[in-house]
């Protein structure tokens, strides 16, 4: 038995009942639930400190600016960045990756240059590179899925060559639950002078990592998958890499000097944050990290045990097809699977009737779905507050689904 009781009480939504049943929330890979401390941080901000940032002189604006910058420092610390100046706030992973695609690749790549990504990527770590390639004339090469349903790292390494300028890869897959071994990839990329951008959307809350140790050039995360609010995320960049990113939005807060026809950009990271930022959401993301960091070790241990438990239980469901690796050591708590003869949307619908919330669909990974030979799957995913009971209820629910629907 693995218990999460100490965390569960911190998440008010887990008291919700769905169709008369307690909520078993198994869609944390889509978005995590929020601890009370995060929700309260929003309230405190708006009731006590709300003002625009950008250095208003008066007390409230000083406070709002200080909270905003302190959140930046917390994100830097969580990712292991040397300096808060390496952190650009964005709406989420998608905006962060697009910022690199438009602001870095868009202005630096030339025909003949190559971007290397993978078939396993979320659309947010694929379409921006398609767009950058189309825009610049560079070409996009995708590493394939191996026969073992994990990324074929050997193939990825073989794609990195003298023309490679950028390698884009996720740290944790949102479908396979795999964790990409980045060490050799980064080394190879750097050896040919390419930059590496890491999609850490799924990793940020569930894996211990450090941008210094990874030695990646850019890394993207979403606050809402990190127990923080929607509307905030971050791009980490090494200082010299961020310096190479051209602003893609112009406006207030990012300039030093403006003439009628031209403007001189201000310093980083503000240069890449045009307009009023998501001040309150940034502050609440800081509160999420304050919540998570002292609990991180215990949380990861809990998630690992629960991952092993869920894997065992799911693999025991008759006929169930699990995608991705079957060994717990290799995987995060994300499980994509199907039941024979049952459409995933029907299954998700019937499970919802029992209070079990999980996702059905392509999970923004259409190319990967095609490789797996399906159009959609069910997906259950775990977080700090997930419990064995959630898993048990999923497994029990799957039996009733089969009974009701399987042909």
């Amino acid at each position: 038995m693995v218990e999460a009781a100490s965390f569960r009480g911190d998440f008010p939504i887990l008291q919700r009942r769905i169709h008369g049943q307690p909520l078993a929330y198994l869609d944390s890979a889509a978005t995590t639930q929020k601890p009370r401390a995060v929700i309260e941080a929003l309230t405190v901000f708006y009731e006590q400190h709300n003002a625009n940032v950008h250095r208003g002189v008066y007390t409230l604006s000083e406070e709002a600016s200080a909270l905003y910058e302190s959140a930046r420092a917390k994100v830097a610390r969580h990712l292991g960045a040397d300096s808060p100046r390496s952190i650009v706030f964005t709406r989420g992973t998608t905006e962060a990756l697009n910022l690199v695609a438009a602001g870095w690749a868009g202005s630096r790549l030339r025909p003949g240059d190559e971007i290397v990504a993978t078939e396993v990527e979320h659309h947010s770590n694929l379409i921006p590179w398609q767009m950058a390639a189309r825009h610049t004339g560079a070409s996009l090469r995708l590493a394939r899925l191996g026969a073992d349903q994990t990324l074929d790292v050997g193939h990825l390494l073989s794609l990195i060559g003298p023309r490679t300028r950028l390698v884009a890869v996720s740290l944790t897959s949102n479908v396979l639950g795999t964790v990409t071994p980045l060490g050799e990839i980064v080394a190879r990329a750097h050896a040919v002078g390419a930059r590496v951008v890491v999609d850490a959307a799924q990793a940020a809350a569930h894996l211990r990592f450090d941008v210094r140790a990874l030695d990646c050039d850019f890394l993207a995360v979403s606050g809402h998958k990190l127990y923080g609010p929607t509307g905030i995320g971050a791009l980490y960049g090494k200082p010299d890499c961020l310096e190479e990113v051209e602003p893609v939005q112009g406006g207030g807060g990012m300039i030093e000097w403006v003439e009628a026809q031209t403007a001189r950009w201000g310093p980083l990271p503000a240069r890449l944050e045009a307009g009023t930022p998501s001040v309150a959401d940034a502050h609440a993301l800081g509160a999420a990290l304050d919540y998570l960091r002292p609990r991180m070790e215990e949380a990861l241990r809990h998630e690992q045990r629960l991952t092993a438990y869920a894997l065992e239980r799911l693999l025991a469901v008759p006929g169930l097809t699990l995608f991705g690796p079957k060994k717990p050591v290799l995987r995060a708590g994300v499980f994509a699977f199907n039941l024979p003869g049952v459409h995933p949307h029907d299954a998700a619908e019937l499970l919802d009737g029992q209070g079990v919330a999980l996702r059905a669909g392509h999970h923004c990974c259409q190319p990967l779905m095609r490789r797996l030979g399906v159009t959609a799957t069910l997906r259950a995913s775990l977080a700090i507050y997930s419990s064995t009971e959630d898993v048990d209820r999923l497994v029990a629910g799957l039996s009733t689904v089969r009974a009701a629907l399987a042909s």
Partner: protein
Amino acid sequence: MSQDLYRATVLEHSRHPQNTGRVAHPTHQARAANPLCGDELEVTLRLTGQHVEQVRVAVRGCVISQASASLMSVIVQGHRADEARRWAGQWRSALEGEADLPPDLESLRPLLELRNHRSRTGCALLAWVALERALGQT
């Protein structure tokens, strides 16, 4: 509501769908897909004048889209093309808005539960979208 939905006639129609497959020599045909789940469906028709002589639907999809396709075929077969078009519009209005079901579409009522269930309304519309497209052909 989910359980009810799946227990109703819906499940019957998805288990024993009517008018599946393809019409031998269709005069009209069209496909529709649901990008959310990748479900696909093809409607083939044989019209004689303005009369829908025969309807067949080939579905790869969820219970809802299967049942909706089967019900659609039963409703439409043997009726005039302009009626079929009108019913498609009425069904859309009922599902996406507040409009009530006309008596001719009474058999679809169990699917009307999807009204507050935006993620699945596409499944219940899929066959009708394909039907509209097929009838739109000149």
